[in-house]
């Protein structure tokens, strides 16, 4: 080992000297006292060249003195560097195929999961919507202000229902709906998405200063609760116009809030309330207690 170390040091020195010699040559003379400096330069070069020669000889001697080691040196992980690298022996190929299949599956599953999560319409947070916005060509929020007016005017509403649209919050619209002599509703829009719904009695005040106060009647508080769950049910960022239309159709079915008995128990009153729930598809009236049983 010592010999090996000496040899390596000698090689290092040789390299250093050669490098210095070439640097000297590259620098050249300093140009003053031409003959003197030239002679000095040549002598210096000869000195350095002599040193290189002697060191080269030394290295040769040392290398000749080296013996072939009887056993391999223990070199840690570096031993693997020189090993056989044939593909057949490494068994790399099956592992590659496996990992490729695995990545493929992960991709498939995450795609399905993404689709499923997208169908979860109950999430209405800002993040979710803004992510959607980047992907979808339309924007739910930045709509033409006339669009909502046009949308509401297109809705086929029964003759007893009146709409009044106004914009107390800048571009976002609020639609005041009066359904016959039964109830009043304020639908607060954000773009074309329904943001909030307030239901009040026909004889109650519903002014745009205070859209969030609850009705003083139990029945309309209950209807408002149901209206909110229906709002989440009909929420659809991909087809916002259709969502608004179906929602308003559903809301209009309350015109017979006090007139129709529950479809299930055929009674009018349960717990002091009329059938406040309207089925989302069939629009049939049910008591809150009767709708799930």
């Amino acid at each position: 080992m010592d010999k090996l170390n000496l040899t390596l040091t000698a090689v290092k020195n040789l390299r250093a000297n050669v490098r210095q010699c070439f640097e000297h040559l590259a620098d050249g003379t300093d140009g003053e006292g031409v003959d003197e400096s030239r002679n000095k330069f040549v002598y210096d070069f000869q000195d350095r060249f002599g040193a290189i020669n002697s060191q080269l000889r030394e290295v040769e001697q040392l290398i000749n003195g080296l013996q072939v080691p009887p056993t391999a040196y223990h070199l840690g992980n570096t031993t693997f560097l020189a090993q056989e690298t044939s593909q057949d022996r490494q068994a790399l190929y099956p592992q590659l195929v496996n990992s490729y299949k695995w990545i493929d599956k992960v991709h498939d599953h995450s795609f399905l999961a993404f689709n499923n999560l997208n169908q979860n319409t109950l999430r209405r947070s800002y993040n979710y919507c803004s992510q959607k916005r980047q992907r979808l060509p339309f924007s739910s929020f930045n709509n033409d202000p006339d669009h909502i007016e046009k949308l509401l005017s297109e809705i086929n509403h029964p003759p007893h229902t009146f709409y009044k649209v106004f914009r107390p919050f800048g571009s976002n619209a609020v639609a005041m709906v009066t359904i016959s002599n039964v109830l009043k509703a304020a639908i607060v829009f954000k773009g074309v998405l329904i943001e909030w719904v307030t239901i009040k009695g026909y004889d109650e005040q519903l002014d745009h200063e205070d859209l969030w106060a609850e009705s003083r009647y139990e029945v309309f508080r209950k209807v408002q609760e149901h209206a909110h769950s229906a709002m989440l049910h009909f929420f659809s960022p991909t087809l916002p116009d259709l969502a608004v239309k179906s929602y308003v159709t559903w809301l209009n079915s309350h015109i017979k809030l006090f007139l129709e008995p529950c479809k299930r128990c055929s009674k009018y009153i349960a717990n002091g309330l009329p059938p406040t729930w309207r089925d989302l598809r069939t629009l049939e009236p049910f008591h809150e207690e009767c709708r799930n049983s």
Partner: protein
Amino acid sequence: MGVTVLQPYPLPEGKSGAHIIDHLAKRLLSLGATHAGQFLVDCETFISTPQHGTPARAVHVLHNSEYPASTFSIIDNGNGKQVALVADSIFDLLMLKMTSTFTSKKQTKIESRGARFEYGDFVIKLGSVTMMEHFKGILIEIEYRPCVTLSYCWEMIREMLQGFLGINVAKEYPTYFTTQTIMNAMGQQQLHAKQNDIYEPMDTVKQYLEHFTNYRKHVQIHGAMGGGASSVGTVGGGGPGGVLLPSSVGMGGRS
């Protein structure tokens, strides 16, 4: 403010009014209603002194504890034409100043008072009608506050009434709503179905007046016939049905 319907409760023979009211109150409480104070509706009638052959006019002055700041007055010219007026409670003092033209018929002062119950959005009042401290009958007032027209919620009110009173209530709208006459543009009176109109507090007062008048008439008949206790059940258009057993008519939707 919602639709109010008055329903006289026929007194079964051999039972006192207080007993029946107690019984109905217990039934309401067990239904889930809450006791919410007392109420009083009173009616005083003034008759004008006839002058120069003009017929005597009656002015009915009513108070309703549901509207404590108002005095309701209805002028009746004797042939079906009524003029209604809602004034501040100071109107009573004005009537006192008019004793020269209108004299109060103290003996016909009639009132309905009793307990007030709330059940969901319903307000139910169990009133016992008394005239000159004499018990005349039971008058149930039921109000459904969220609704403003009778035709929308009559079936609900009917179901509610049948449920806790245990009597059969006629399917037709109460007579007050179907037999109203109004003045048309030509100054003629015509029949007007009131069940689709928006209900007003005055309608409640007019209904009370109608029923009070019936009770007063009954007194006169009673006095003339010398005892007609069996006819109590037919007063005020309470419907053709007799008394049903309470257990046979379940409370709607409670099952």
